[in-house]
């Protein structure tokens, strides 16, 4: 008897603490490196929304590898909005009819309120003299990158290397393939997500260079000390556009469409842009971009649509089962 009383007590308090807190809750399902960004942005948006509508919001966050998160939403994770690493992962949701095919046209600039690119994080003083992509293919250089099969960031890494090889004089697909194969021969660890790779390089001290999101590289330096690492911006890299969208099936069921849309639109406002820039994402807003221009290295950015004909095509050619990445990785020994 006593025990059941205790149990019901515990259960009741648990359900109460979950449900009593707020008027509306939103769930933002995001990828790995955006944790700090959305922590600050959520606080700003809650304040803005309270001022505008007098409604109290609670915004919950979930973070993991981009592909894994898309999978969770497909399996029924009730995300009001998704803010993932690449359009391909949201396309996967569209394929399951969770949101419409033309989702990427619903917000300005390919639904990517901020951009990023791929840079190199090297050990202080750059002992291996890594300056550009071709230095990565040299023997004896230890590379850390996440696995392109599971990590959005890693796919950008891989495609940036490919695009660099194409842009060299006399570059073609065969040469690019050989070049990227050589780079992957130098890879020491393939972690499943971007944050795991950073930890391997920074905490466990593996490898000479980490291929990382620009924001992730800056964050590692900020958190762990500028005396330990340097950022190297290669001559050419890829314009990474991490897209955001509301999840139609969920917001329509929960009745949260209006606030979810406002949440994403506010990312484009000066305040949202400023927060993104503060967390080392490249802002779209030109004024804010000018303000933070000194923070980011100058780099020639190519786009996925321009060089690879969009994500669906790139994904199919390079990262599907038995695709070019699989062939290269199997042959590297």
């Amino acid at each position, binding site marked *: 008897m006593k025990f059941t009383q205790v149990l019901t007590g515990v259960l009741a308090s648990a359900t109460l603490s979950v449900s009593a807190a707020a008027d509306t809750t939103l769930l933002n399902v995001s990828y790995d490196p955006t944790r700090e960004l959305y922590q600050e942005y959520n606080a700003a948006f809650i304040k803005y929304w309270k001022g505008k509508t007098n409604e109290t919001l609670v915004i919950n966050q979930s973070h993991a590898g981009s592909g894994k998160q898309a999978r969770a939403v*497909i399996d029924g994770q009730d995300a009001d909005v998704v803010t993932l690493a690449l359009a391909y992962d949201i396309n996967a949701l569209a394929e399951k009819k969770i949101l419409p095919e033309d989702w990427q046209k619903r917000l300005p600039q390919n639904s990517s309120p901020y951009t990023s690119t791929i840079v190199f994080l090297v050990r202080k003083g750059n002992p291996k003299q890594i300056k550009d992509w071709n230095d990565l293919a040299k023997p004896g250089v230890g590379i850390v990158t996440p696995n392109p099969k599971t990590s959005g960031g890693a796919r950008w890494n891989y495609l940036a290397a490919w695009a660099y090889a194409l842009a060299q004089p006399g570059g073609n697909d065969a040469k690019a393939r050989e070049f990227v194969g050589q780079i992957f021969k130098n890879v020491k660890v393939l972690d499943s997500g971007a944050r795991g790779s950073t930890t391997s390089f920074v905490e466990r001290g593996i490898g000479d260079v980490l291929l990382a999101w620009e924001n992730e590289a800056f964050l590692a330096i900020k958190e762990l000390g500028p005396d330990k690492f340097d950022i190297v911006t290669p001559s050419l890299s890829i314009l990474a556009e991490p897209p955001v969208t509301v999840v139609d099936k969920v917001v329509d069921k929960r009745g949260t469409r209006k606030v979810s849309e406002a949440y994403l639109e506010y990312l484009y406002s000066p305040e949202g842009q400023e927060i993104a820039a503060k967390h080392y994402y490249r802002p779209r807003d030109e004024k804010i971009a000018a303000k933070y221009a000194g923070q980011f290295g100058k780099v020639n950015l190519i786009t996925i649509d321009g060089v690879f004909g969009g994500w669906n095509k790139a994904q199919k050619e390079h990262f599907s089962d038995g695709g070019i990445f699989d062939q290269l990785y199997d042959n590297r020994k």
Partner: protein
Amino acid sequence: MTGFVMQPDSPPSVRTPTRATTEPLWVRVVLIGVAFAFFAVFLLIPLAAVFIEALKKGWDTYANSISTPDSISAIKLTLVVAAISVPLNLVFGVAAAWSVAKFEFRGKQFLISLIDLPFSVSPVISGLIYVLIFGAQSRFGQALRELDIRVLFAVPGIVLATIFVTFPFVARELIPLMQAQGNDEEEAAVMLGAGGFTTFFRVTLPNIKWGLMYGIILCNARAMGEFGAVSVVSGHIRGLTNTIPLHVEILYNEYNFVPAFAVASLLAILALLTLCVKSFIEWRRGDLEA
């Protein structure tokens, strides 16, 4: 007994055992040394490291990192999950052990293998099983969604995965014990006119008391510490579906090393407590059997 065998006329100064009954000194030193070194490297140093890291910035930081809303919700959730899954597994485990140990029936071996299944399956797979059953892509999952019942990425899913993973602990502990005790006492009770429930509560249960406690403690430790299966079904929503182990991973990945170790130290303390209670139970059990 060998320790007491002494030659009656040997002088008291000759106390070292003879060559025939013991290993040479260096072998003993090396063996014991290796055992201790292994113990220190693999258990003591990591355990100490958890507490040293957790207290690196002093008590205040330690207390603060344990009492953030996210940490408290993780602790609460872990307690709730254990409070549901351990009693259920207690009932299931006793029922399973009782039927296996006290009765003969067809398919008994099969039942025993089923009980062992969660031990032989990787926890990640245990979690994925529930994603396949309750996920929005399955028909059953879809039906539940229509009824607005959330299993996956919510507390029920975490409880289910935990129950699955911790199922064998109680049953595995009880089966050999009950088999060794045989049916004699129960038969006597029934002959004297006791009913099924009386027999169980007044004869069987007192006999398996200590073994049962031991099983519950192991079950509880695993229920609170489970990572793999829970990670798959949790959805990682901070403040809502993160248990202590998941919360530790998140903190660590956010470069919050001290809070990560502070929260991890809670699990370490739980492990030490478990060890103490376990030793106590073993000691009581030894006492009773002697």
